[in-house]
């Protein structure tokens, strides 16, 4: 069974400090990994996906298959980064070819001024 674990429910850092949001996954095949973000009173939106290898809003995430991790990092946190962050995995579903997502429970990131 596929599973995504985000060990921190809440992470509080000061503005300008580095940020690392942890994500570990369990999946037997080759998954695709994502980070989704939900700002206050807004809908869930894609932040980045590992296959695109992009840096979005200064965030990066590297897929480490040996450690089955996909941690989200940013060198200098900004106040507008405060939000809920969800790590998600897509591995497809047997019999249907769907690419529905398996989400972690989320980490609430608070950037203090």
């Amino acid at each position, binding site marked *: 069974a596929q599973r995504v674990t985000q060990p921190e429910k809440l992470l509080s850092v000061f503005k300008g400090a580095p940020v690392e949001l942890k994500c570990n996954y369990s999946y037997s095949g080759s998954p695709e990994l994502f980070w989704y973000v939900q700002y206050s009173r807004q809908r869930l939106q894609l932040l980045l996906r590992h296959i695109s290898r992009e840096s979005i809003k200064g965030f990066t995430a590297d897929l480490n298959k040996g450690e089955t991790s996909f941690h989200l990092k940013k060198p200098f946190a900004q106040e507008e980064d405060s939000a809920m962050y969800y790590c998600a995995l897509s591995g497809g579903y047997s019999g249907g070819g769907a690419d*529905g997502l398996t989400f972690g429970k989320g980490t609430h990131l608070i950037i203090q001024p």
Partner: protein
Amino acid sequence: GAGVSQSPRYKVAKRGQDVALRCDPISGHVSLFWYQQALGQGPEFLTYFQNEAQLDKSGLPSDRFFAERPEGSVSTLKIQRTQQEDSAVYLCASSRGVNTEAFFGQGTRLTVV
């Protein structure tokens, strides 16, 4: 250029009542997903449509839950004989196809009293 639209935004139902939640996906999006997000949890997959075909309903928690997308556009998630454990935010997402970005709606918050 409207995004995914869900209605109603909030629904309060008495235990035992039937409810219907509507999702208007982005025009032209082939794939449509329903997720259930309980308080303090990440979204959990319920079901997936490709056009009008429901290809995966493995996440539906019981036979009280039923989803349809008869014309391959608007989708309705119906919950019969609601129970308190059905209280959650129900999210709809759509995408152009397999392995493309999924766009989420604002969700419907269902409270069963």
